[in-house]
């Protein structure tokens, strides 16, 4: 166990996965990850080609080409950089290329902000990438190792975004357990691609599909996502058996079994919620947590089962679909539609780096208890809104 920066832990995890090609463009707060990786390549600690590019669009495009050529690839970005990748993200998924990316979560302009929220990855929800959210530095790095195994699984073959909150996880120093190369090699087999791009045997990847086949190609991606639902759970279990650490499969639960009020959230805020839950439990409030680990594929059935015994749910969104509400709240409600009469409250919070404290969590739980009594529910509420400056 070593006390290291979250970004360094991620770079270490990438190193032991032995990617052949790494391509990235530095952007705050992702920079420390790719800076460390480029140093590792320069030092010969990774036998990878590090391709320096002039933009994130090129970084992902390099990964697409390299992955099509049958190599294991890695990139990392955040916020505006991820937005710039948008068009190519669809290509990576449609061409079924198992690229792994660390998507550091940061808010989007305007106004300009370099601080954390999750608007950037939420806005890439529909690209066909698997999205896994990490709670701490150890999970963000362990999930990289799992991500390659998920992505490269023959009946999945989809790219994976491992999401980690900017600064809160990338720049924090935490004790992290590192990996033995031998153990990782045993856990993660070599990438064995179905198709290989080779000048000697030319092929077109992501070729033209007319209306008679386009739907079927999209359906195949949807089917792969269904396979991923099962495989993410299996691989999390295998990882636990091999490395002794476990963060949940598609979701994880904390003091949820007998909880009347359940909090649903993703990312680093989970730690704060757990502490707040312990304090509320000590005060006799039966509250628990569902941590959403896989945002895509979305664990519809797992959430339904987990929510079945609860009277109220509180969904935390560090994002907003402008003109509607938080994306996770919409997804959770649609998963429960017709299956549950639970009182559901959605909160928008933590935007552009606004702190979420234990008190913030307790206030939301108080509101849920209030709503259950009064029957009045405000569905999309901005938490700690500074009305005095509006």
């Amino acid at each position, binding site marked *: 166990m070593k006390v290291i920066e979250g970004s360094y832990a991620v770079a270490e995890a990438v190193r032991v996965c032995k990617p052949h090609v790494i391509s990235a463009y530095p952007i705050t707060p992702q920079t420390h990850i790719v800076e460390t990786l480029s140093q590792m390549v320069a030092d010969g600690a990774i036998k990878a080609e590090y391709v320096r590019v002039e933009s994130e669009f090129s970084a992902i495009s390099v990964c697409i080409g390299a992955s099509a050529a049958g190599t294991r690839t890695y990139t990392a970005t955040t916020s505006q950089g991820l937005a710039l990748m948008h068009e190519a993200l669809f290509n990576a998924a*449609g*061409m*079924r*290329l198992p690229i792994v990316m660390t998507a550091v979560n940061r808010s989007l302009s305007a106004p300009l902000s370099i601080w954390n929220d999750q608007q950037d990855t939420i806005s890439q929800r529909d690209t066909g990438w698997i999205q896994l959210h990490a709670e701490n530095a150890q999970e963000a790095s362990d999930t990289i190792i799992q991500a390659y195994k998920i992505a490269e699984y023959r009946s999945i*073959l989809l790219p994976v975004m491992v999401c980690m909150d900017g600064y809160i996880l990338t720049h924090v120093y935490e004790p992290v357990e590192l990996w033995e190369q031998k153990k990782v090699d045993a856990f993660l087999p070599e990438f064995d691609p*179905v*198709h290989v791009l080779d000048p000697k045997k*030319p*092929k*077109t*990847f*992501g*070729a*033209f*599909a*007319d209306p008679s*086949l386009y739907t*079927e*190609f999209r359906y*195949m991606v949807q089917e792969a996502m269904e396979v991923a639902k099962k495989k993410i759970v299996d691989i999390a279990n295998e990882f636990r058996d091999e490395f002794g650490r476990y963060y949940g499969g598609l979701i994880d639960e904390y003091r949820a079994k007998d909880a009347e009020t359940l909090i649903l959230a993703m990312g680093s805020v989970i730690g704060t919620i757990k502490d707040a839950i312990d304090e509320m439990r000590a005060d006799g409030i039966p509250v628990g947590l569902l941590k959403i680990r896989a945002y895509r594929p979305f664990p519809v059935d797992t959430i339904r089962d987990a929510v079945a015994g609860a009277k109220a749910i509180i969904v935390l969104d560090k994002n907003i679909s402008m003109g509607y509400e938080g994306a996770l709240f919409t997804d959770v409600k649609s998963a429960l539609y017709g299956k549950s009469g639970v009182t559901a409250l959605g909160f928008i919070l933590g935007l552009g780096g606004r702190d979420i404290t234990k008190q913030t969590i307790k206030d939301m739980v108080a509101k849920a208890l209030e709503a259950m009594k009064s029957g009045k529910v405000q569905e999309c509420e901005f938490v700690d809104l500074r009305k005095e400056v509006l």
Partner: protein
Amino acid sequence: MKLSVGAVAEPGSTRANKTGTWRTFRPVFNADLCVGCGICSQFCPEGIIHEKNDKYATDYDYCKGCGICAAECPKGAIKMVLEVK
């Protein structure tokens, strides 16, 4: 195109996919006005205008009707005519 993981196609897919199906205007070549300069074939983005006995013609299986050939022909030998189906 066959269904395959990642929409991967063998070479020759551009030949198999007839891209002339969505044309609105069809270029009609007038051999009497054509002087065989070949400018149209240089400009055609599909690369399908070919020479036959010093005169030029296109391949309607792949012609998307963009009209670049008609705009570039110095002799006005190509007219764009509305497709009727």
